């Protein structure tokens, strides 16, 4: 395992995660229209790229990255999350993105690892 920054307790930085995720989404689907044959690939790429960048930060966290892409047809979509964890060290961040033909919602959950 890589070495983690030890010392002070690490808290999840949700602004940084927000930026990382936005860039990943733009990189994968920025400028494209909803395409049923590709959407599978897109969601997989978005979660993988986001996770890789988060892990590169080298912080002592376990991560869960979730991505949902929905075609814009007027249907209603609602998402909710609830977490049972240590509120002092763990955190989450949700990014909503849209273009003309689809919505994309990505959630990142970070749970501190006891060292």
């Amino acid at each position, binding site marked *: 395992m890589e070495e983690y920054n030890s010392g002070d307790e690490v808290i999840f930085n949700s602004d940084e995660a927000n930026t990382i995720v936005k860039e990943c989404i733009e990189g994968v689907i920025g400028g494209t229209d*909803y395409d*049923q044959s590709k*959407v*599978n690939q*897109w*969601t*997989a790429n*978005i*979660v*993988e790229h986001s*996770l890789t960048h*988060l*892990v590169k930060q080298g912080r002592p966290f*376990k*991560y*869960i*990255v*979730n*991505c*949902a*892409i*929905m*075609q*814009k*047809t*007027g*249907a*209603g*979509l*609602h*998402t*909710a*999350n*609830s*977490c*049972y*964890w*240590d509120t002092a060290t*763990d955190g*989450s961040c949700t990014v909503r993105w849209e273009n003309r033909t689809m919505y994309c919602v990505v*959630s990142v*959950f970070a*749970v501190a690892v*006891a060292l």
Partner: protein
Amino acid sequence: MDDYQTEEESVEAAIGGNAYQHSRVNQWSTSVVEQCLSQLSKLGKPFKYIVTCIIMQKNGAGLQTASTCFWDNSTDGSCAVRWENKSMYCIVSVFGLAI
């Protein structure tokens, strides 16, 4: 996992038999995740939990979801339940991380 049953029961209890209603769906998704979470924490196991719920109206739209996790494969796990009725789909995922 017992989780699968817990999740299914929570979904059925919260929205079973209802038709999609824009004004109530907020309340429903919140109540589904809260019920799942409280049933899971009652199990008394040494885990942190994350529960997510997606409710979508049935009107022909395409929906794709994916998750990836960076954790300890030997102790952590997840479980997803897909539920539907005549007017909506509901997808609930539970992630359990060992302490």
